[in-house]
């Protein structure tokens, strides 16, 4: 009985959520470990949501947004990128390995990129093991 | 094996402490301990912080005297960064320090100490407090509350925050004083000076005359003293000056603050989180033995009054002369702290008025720009409770690498232990004691306003 990581994926409605739909209709398989949360734009993912996920049972978090320049709301994904830098920098402050978090870009017609992104993070986090519960205080 | 009486907590002090009185089989006092209970670690957790943030972090060492830590830290960081505040900036800092001393002394004498004198040390504990004073002397209480509040509001009007201030910044002060503010503050300072004259008269008539035998005896010990004096004429100084360490025989050594580590060491006992400073430069070591104390000196009002040659303001000077006429110099009796606190109250009101009258106080050049750099600085001010020393070392980013803090009240921890022993030993015999007697032992601590 190996460790099965729980991965939370914040998927932007316009690109990655649509890509996930497309992956589904094309019968492409991705790891069952990934739980998708649809957001209207990757830019609305507050760093706190990532930390919340990690402190409430997620072992890894991925944010998937549109390619830069293709955001439905013009510059939402630029905000996501800026916030992502904060998350990456601060994760260690809160006792999490930086590699548990990732941001990636794709378009609605790239289900293969989505599958690869999900697979990669699941395998990476599987090797890292679960978030160390005893490291986190109350 | 005898009993242990635990006075826990010591009440009407600023801090967490308990007294343990160990009785022998005959019920006489074998040993006493003042166990200081609190330890927060400021010297450690300021490491890594940018030095200019320190003055608004270390205020939280004490919510009654936050201005003192604020200013000692500002002075230390000024020194570490090699910057000198412009005259108006320095004036504004000292004015705030004086306002803070005013409210602190009113608080201590009337809210914390007076219940023992106005209601009596043996009064039932449920009335022996400021609420009891309100019931027994409503007009006095109303006036006291109003005066203390006035002082706090003067600080807020000038500096935004009275508790845990922010206006003292590295290089000076954060905002200039306006002329309209100056006029109002002058008027209010005169009101406070009036009240201070009344306070000393009140104390002389209702406290000091009535309790003179208690004053002469309770907790009385013999020690040296530490304070700050003017570099030119040796008069009492609180914001800046030279440090003076006096032996019990009245002989003095003066030193510049940045050499403090040559003169002061800190002894540690495993039964007190509070360390015990002692005079290293006397080369006697450290001992609390009442028959042969070694290295022991006191700080706070009695000490400052003893070490100064004189006071530069007229009413306080007159009060000092009267005091010295009765009690000599240095005066040793512990309960005289209350008397000297009120003499100092006169000084700080008069000095505040003096500074507010200076033309340059409303100058808008209040802060010199600072660049972060590697350095070390020592900043010293006289807090109400004693000589406060902040010592910071910075790296080349201007962040703290090392800190040493000797807080004003800690100089008195050794002496308080001695006073407790003296009081308990003389009051408790044959296992006979009551609640009022235990309160008297506490009074020997309360005088130090720890």
């Amino acid at each position, binding site marked *: 009985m190996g460790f099965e990581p729980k991965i939370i994926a914040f998927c932007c409605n316009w690109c990655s959520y649509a890509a996930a739909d497309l992956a589904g209709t094309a019968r492409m398989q991705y790891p069952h470990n990934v739980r998708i949360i649809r957001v209207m734009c990757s830019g609305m993912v507050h760093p706190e949501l990532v930390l919340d996920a990690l402190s409430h049972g997620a072992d890894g978090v991925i944010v998937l947004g549109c390619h830069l320049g293709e955001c439905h709301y013009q510059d939402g994904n630029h905000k996501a990128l800026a916030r992502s830098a904060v998350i990456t920098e601060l994760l260690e402050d809160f006792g999490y390995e930086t590699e548990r978090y990732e941001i990636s870009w794709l378009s609605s017609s790239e289900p293969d990129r989505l599958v690869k992104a999900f697979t990669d993070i699941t395998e990476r986090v599987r090797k890292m093991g679960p978030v160390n519960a005893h490291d986190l205080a109350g | 094996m005898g009993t242990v009486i635990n006075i826990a907590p010591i009440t009407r002090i600023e801090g967490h402490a308990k007294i343990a009185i160990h009785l022998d089989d005959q019920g006489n006092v074998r040993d006493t301990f003042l166990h200081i209970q609190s330890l927060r*670690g400021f010297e450690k957790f300021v490491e890594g912080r940018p030095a200019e943030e320190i003055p608004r972090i270390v205020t939280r060492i004490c919510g009654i005297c936050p201005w003192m830590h604020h200013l000692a830290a500002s002075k230390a960081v000024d020194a570490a960064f090699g910057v000198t505040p412009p005259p108006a900036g320095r004036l504004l800092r000292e004015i705030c320090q004086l306002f803070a001393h005013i409210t602190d002394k009113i608080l201590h004498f009337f809210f914390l100490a007076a219940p023992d004198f106005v209601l009596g040390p043996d009064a039932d504990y449920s009335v022996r*407090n400021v609420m009891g004073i309100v019931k027994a002397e409503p007009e006095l209480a109303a006036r006291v509350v109003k005066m203390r509040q006035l002082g706090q509001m003067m600080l807020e009007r000038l500096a935004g925050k009275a508790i845990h201030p922010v206006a003292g910044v590295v290089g000076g002060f954060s*905002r200039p004083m306006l002329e309209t503010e100056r006029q109002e503050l002058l008027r209010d300072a005169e009101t406070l000076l009036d009240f201070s004259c009344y306070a000393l008269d009140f104390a002389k008539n209702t406290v000091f005359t009535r309790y003179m035998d208690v004053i002469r005896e309770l907790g009385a010990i013999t020690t040296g003293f530490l304070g700050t004096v003017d570099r030119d004429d040796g008069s009492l100084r609180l914001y800046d000056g030279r440090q003076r360490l006096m032996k019990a025989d009245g002989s003095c050594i003066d030193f510049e603050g940045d050499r403090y*580590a040559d003169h002061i060491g800190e002894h540690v006992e495993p039964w007190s989180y509070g360390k015990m400073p002692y005079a290293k430069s006397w080369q006697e070591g450290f001992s609390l033995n009442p028959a042969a104390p070694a290295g022991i000196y006191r700080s706070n009002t009695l000490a400052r009054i003893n070490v100064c040659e004189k006071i530069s303001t007229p009413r306080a000077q007159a009060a000092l002369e009267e005091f010295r006429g009765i009690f000599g110099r240095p005066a040793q009796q512990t309960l005289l702290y209350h008397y000297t606190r009120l003499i100092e109250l006169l000084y700080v009101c008069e000095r505040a008025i003096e500074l507010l009258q200076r033309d340059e106080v409303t100058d808008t050049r209040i802060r010199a720009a600072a660049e972060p750099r590697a350095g070390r600085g020592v900043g010293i001010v006289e807090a109400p409770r004693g000589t406060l020393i902040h010592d910071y070392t910075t790296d080349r980013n201007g962040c703290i690498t090392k800190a040493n803090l000797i807080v004003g009240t800690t100089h008195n921890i050794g002496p308080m232990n001695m006073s407790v022993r003296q009081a308990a030993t003389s009051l408790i015999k044959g296992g006979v004691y009551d*609640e009022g007697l235990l309160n008297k032992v506490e009074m020997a601590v309360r005088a130090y306003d720890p």
Partner: protein
Amino acid sequence: MSVRAALEWLNSCSGCEIAILNIGEALVPLLTQHLDLVHAPILMDHKYLGQRGDGTELDIPEAEVGLVSGGVANIEHLQVLVKMRERCRVLIALGTCATHGGIPALMNGQDRREGWEGVFATRTTDPGCSVPDIEVPAPLDRVYACDEKVKIDLFLPGCPPNPALIAEVLMAVVEGRDPVLPQKSVCDTCPAKREGKGAVSVVRRFLINAEFLAEDPVGRMRCLLEQGFMCMGPVTAAGCAGRGLPRCIEARVPCRGCFGPVRRDGNQMLDMMNALASNGIDFKSVVDRRSLLRFSGAHGLLRPVKKKPAAGRG
């Protein structure tokens, strides 16, 4: 009909207690008519172990309302807090130390053992001293906020808390109603002029004064964040405004977050870094970002820096 009240202080500095005194003239009727103080070490002489000092178990009388200031850092704090919870019907966490750990929770960023040992190894401390451990309460593994240990009925943050809000809360208990407390961020109460943060790309240290005309009201001063200073107004709970505006801004000094996060379970460091990044300001230009948690380092938020084994750095 006065309400029985108890006041305790844990890992505190007494600033909250002075804030109570700063209620002003309303303090007199509050302390003598509306409230009946049955236990309050700073003001009156009720003792833990009996008035003759011969008890063995810490005791505090029953009260309708209890106020606790200070965080929980040693076993005695915990004992006192638990007893206060047991004896007081309504328990109020007073001040940011009680609600979020406060400044003393900066100790949570230190290695536990090295931290305490360092305090007893300063420049002037006699060499060879170890941390005292006789008749003094042993430290816990870190500094906690009160609600991490007991249920708290009401949270009144602030360093210090606003005297007007303390009075409001106490009178609400006396009158049997819900208190009216502010809900938003400090910016909501700040009159400074906003013109857009576009020009700011890095954060400046507060080593020179802000730009303002002394004789002009604060409403004419440009927002301190827009002047390029770190100001934690956006990520700090409102409540400090005493005379119509935030107290530090009144002194022309930027906010450092002393009322704790806007939402009780918020993270001031994360929120501030996020706010900077979202506005195109280089968050890496902040020196010592860990001190953004200086008031809210409890709840497991502030922790010692993990030493990286492979890199060989200390």
